């Protein structure tokens, strides 16, 4: 059962890596981001093939189980992504306001000159 899951996961990660590389070739990803993603999937593969290694890392951080360690990391990562997303939305909102304002002022100026 475990072997099947490992196979499926590795297959999935290979597809993901191919995707990342294709994005890099199409200039959609920068080199740094590409390396980070490939590294992420390779590390994920390693931890799936040898699950005990994550426990060793977890223990170094004072956490008992490797799976818990990954879960904590994932939650922290999700928080970070959400935060960045929120800031980005806020920035887009302000850009929208700038566009709406410029248009409103221009319309007013046109009416004033008529």
């Amino acid at each position, binding site marked *: 059962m475990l072997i099947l899951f490992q196979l499926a996961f590795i297959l999935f990660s290979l597809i993901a890596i191919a995707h990342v590389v294709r994005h890099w070739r199409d200039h959609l990803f920068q080199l740094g981001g590409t390396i980070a993603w490939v590294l992420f999937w390779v590390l994920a593969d390693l931890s799936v093939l040898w699950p005990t290694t994550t426990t060793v890392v977890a223990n170094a951080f004072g956490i008992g189980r490797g799976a818990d360690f990954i879960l904590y990391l994932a939650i922290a990562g999700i928080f970070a992504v959400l935060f960045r997303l929120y800031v980005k939305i806020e920035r887009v909102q302000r850009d929208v*306001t700038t566009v*709406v304002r410029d248009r409103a002022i221009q319309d007013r100026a046109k009416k004033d000159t008529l």
Partner: protein
Amino acid sequence: MFLALVPAYNEARHISSVVRNLLPHVDRVVVIDDGSSDKTASEAISGGALVISHDINRGQGASLETGHHYARSINADFVLHFDGDGQFDVEDIAGAHDALTSANADILFGSRFLDDRSTLPWAKRFVIMPIARHINRVVSGLPLRDAHNGFRILNRRALDVVRMTQDGMAHATEIPSLVKKYHLRYIEFPVKVTYHEFGQGVRGGFRILKDLFFGMFIHTP
């Protein structure tokens, strides 16, 4: 030139009378129609206002800043912030303007707590306002007695530097923080507020905090 800036979102019911009442007290009334779906713009025009229209709703702070842009473009000497729902009393304007100029101040903040003309709901006076006042004091650094009062008068110096980036209600905290940042001279002045609706409530308060928090991470040129 003394300009009244009235941000309005779906205020067709009140806006015409607000504009008519304002006209004898200022040189020009500018209504910023914030993407209203009702007849706010045409009602404001029929009342005698000059209307600037946002295509879509952007919030009260965004509307006021649009008004500021316009005021700067025509070199206005003073601008008055005045709510479009008729909660303020135009009789306060002349006195406020006199107080601002005689005190040689740059900006005037209206306050409901300097006299007893305003009747606030109990919860608002004793629970929400004290909390809002403290948060405002901590965030902006200005010890205003009335945290979020929409009645303000700015002179040209204040108009030049008070550039709001907060589109929503958080602009009411942003303005005092800009006053502190640019060392503007400010005074508080008693104004009367008549409530038609309860106001922002606790959820609105949390939204302001959220806006202020995320606003800290956005670089503004």
